[in-house]
């Protein structure tokens, strides 16, 4: 069994794909000589050289333009955003260019890029470095949005992202880089997009989540099963676009109760979309209103106690599960 950290699994995926396809290269701030801000690209410069592991200036718009143009001309670039908070500087390139070129060109030009990097909250990084904005990207037609929660998924999904012919927003979680896990040994192991993973099977409540938060949900589900004998089914979406609606609905038809959970702020967060889809497709199957677990609508505070209150934890998930089964 191959065991490694989430960050190492990402590196393995990129390394394998760069070995396999000379059109794949990576660029971004500090990806080369510095060995990566979060060490995800460690050793890759030595292995592939500076023409394929490209250090860039702090110019996010130009980085995204660079990979988009290179993809239009036939390469398969990966852009590392130092964090997704900085991708905001490149939003015009991502939204108005990268995402729309296939459609605007009547399907003539494809844009196989991966824009990846850490997203999410935590570590007292406060308002400008700690946030979750996956709904923004999910809202843009033409972008696929991937948010792996485990080392095995990180590798399998990143390999699929690199081979995909479309722009992929690949949001890692800084809090997961050190997470250890078992990996599939097959170097051709790819996880297709749009296939959610049932992390834990259950019968009473469906919990839908993704990224770091799904691990929180998993822990919460185990605890509530022990303490209250409530059986939760935990679904890891893995990709928000495309969304595996079937797996969600199938589970809802079984449990009749749903909690959706994410780190990003509740207002117009991805949970709103999930709840809406479930209401549209399985309203009659629901025994109680859908519960949302999400960050509050505040910029991320710095102070430890306030930050803790601004990021959903196991206890928030447990409380939501109790509400949805009318225990409180």
């Amino acid at each position: 069994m191959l065991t490694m950290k989430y960050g190492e699994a990402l590196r393995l995926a990129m390394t394998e794909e760069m070995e396999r396809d000379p059109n794949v290269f990576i660029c971004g701030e500090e990806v080369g000589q510095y060995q990566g801000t979060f060490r995800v690209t460690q050793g890759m410069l030595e292995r592939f050289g500076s023409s394929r592991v490209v250090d860039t200036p702090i110019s996010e718009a130009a980085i995204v333009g660079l990979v988009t143009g290179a993809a239009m001309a036939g390469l398969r670039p990966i852009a590392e955003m130092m964090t997704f908070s900085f991708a905001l500087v490149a939003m015009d390139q991502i939204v108005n260019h990268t995402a729309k070129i296939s459609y605007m060109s009547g399907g003539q030009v494809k844009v196989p890029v991966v824009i990846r990097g850490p997203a999410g909250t935590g570590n007292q990084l406060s308002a400008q470095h700690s946030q979750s904005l996956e709904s923004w990207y999910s809202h843009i037609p033409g972008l696929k949005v991937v948010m792996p929660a485990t080392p095995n998924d990180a590798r399998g999904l990143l390999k699929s992202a690199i081979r995909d012919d479309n722009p992929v927003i690949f949001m890692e979680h800084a809090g997961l880089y050190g997470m250890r896990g078992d990996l599939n040994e097959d170097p051709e192991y790819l996880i297709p997009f749009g296939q959610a993973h049932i992390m834990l099977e259950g019968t009473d409540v469906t919990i839908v989540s993704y990224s770091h938060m799904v691990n929180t949900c998993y822990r919460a589900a185990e605890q509530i099963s022990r303490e209250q004998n409530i059986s939760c089914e935990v679904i890891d979406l893995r990709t928000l676009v495309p969304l595996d609606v079937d797996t969600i609905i199938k589970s809802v038809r079984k449990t009749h109760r749903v909690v959706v959970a994410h780190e990003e702020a509740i207002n117009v967060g991805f949970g709103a979309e999930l709840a809406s889809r479930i209401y549209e497709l399985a309203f009659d199957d629901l025994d109680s209103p859908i519960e949302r677990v999400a960050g509050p609508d505040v910029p991320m505070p710095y102070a430890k106690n306030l930050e803790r209150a601004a990021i959903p934890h196991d206890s928030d998930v447990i409380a939501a599960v109790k509400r949805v089964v009318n225990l409180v």
Partner: protein
Amino acid sequence: MGKLAVRESSDSFPFDAQEGLSLYRLMRIIRRCEEPLNRIYREGKIGGYLHLYIGQEAVAAGLIPLLRADDYILSAYRDHGHAIARGVDPKRIVAELYGRVTGCSRGKGGSMHIYDADRNFLGGYGIVGGVVPLAVGVGFAIKYRGGDQVCVCFFGDGAMNQGAVHEALNMASLFKVPCLFVLENNGYAMGTAVERHSAVTDFIQRVSYGYGIASERVDGMDLVEVREVVERAIAYIRKRTAPYFIEAECYRYAGHGFSDTAQQQKTYRSDEEIERWKRRDPIEIFGQRLRDAGILTSSDEEEIDAEARRIADEAIGYAENSPEPPMDELYEGVFSEE
């Protein structure tokens, strides 16, 4: 503005007569194809924004025919002239403006987003300056593969104040990508004159000093001069694999877009200024050079003009008779099929 002195024509014609005639013909076609568009827009057959290239033809015609088929071109939203010069069929361009499925982007891009992947014409872009980072990426890909192609990127003077453009110019120079940046300085960004939008209006200085890119200014109304500079630029780029920047001083005769009417234009420029520039008409200047060299006779001229009108009429007829996109086109192309 009137900053350009009328320049002397050189005595002997500087290049092949046949080539000269074909470039003259190209400029005529670009203009004749665009002239009816405002009228058609008024009739409601074209929607969205419509930005005409009329007055700037010498830049496209002086540059694009010098490219190889495997070179790349990207443009902004004032892109019809560039596309026609690249050999994109005017029929498919006008059909695109009409929103027909036979248009070059299947009716889904419109005037501002002309694409022809077969000709490495990688699109027009509507966000001011947004195209420049893309072009650097195309240039990067060329270099990555060890090719000697050139990626040409057209944009306006207004783009010179966009952050992304400066990020991209710096990166282009840092990575030495084979890009030819072509700033078509027509004196205005919409209704804002260059002096009102740029603290330093010497763009050559800004780019060469600021980013270390070889830069040159040219009279964009004179095809012969454009061609001379472009030949030098392309040779430089292919030889050194490094970027080059050309500022072509030119002028748009029409309003910024359809809604910038003659009345509206009075808020920022005078009729007298427009007339002054029209006296330096690029087609006339080049035509005069050809006549002086005995290459263009008046019967040639009539013939070429008749042909250009015919091409324009045929393009309009083609668009009129083309079907709208079928409804299943709505969802097609959002993602590329694997």
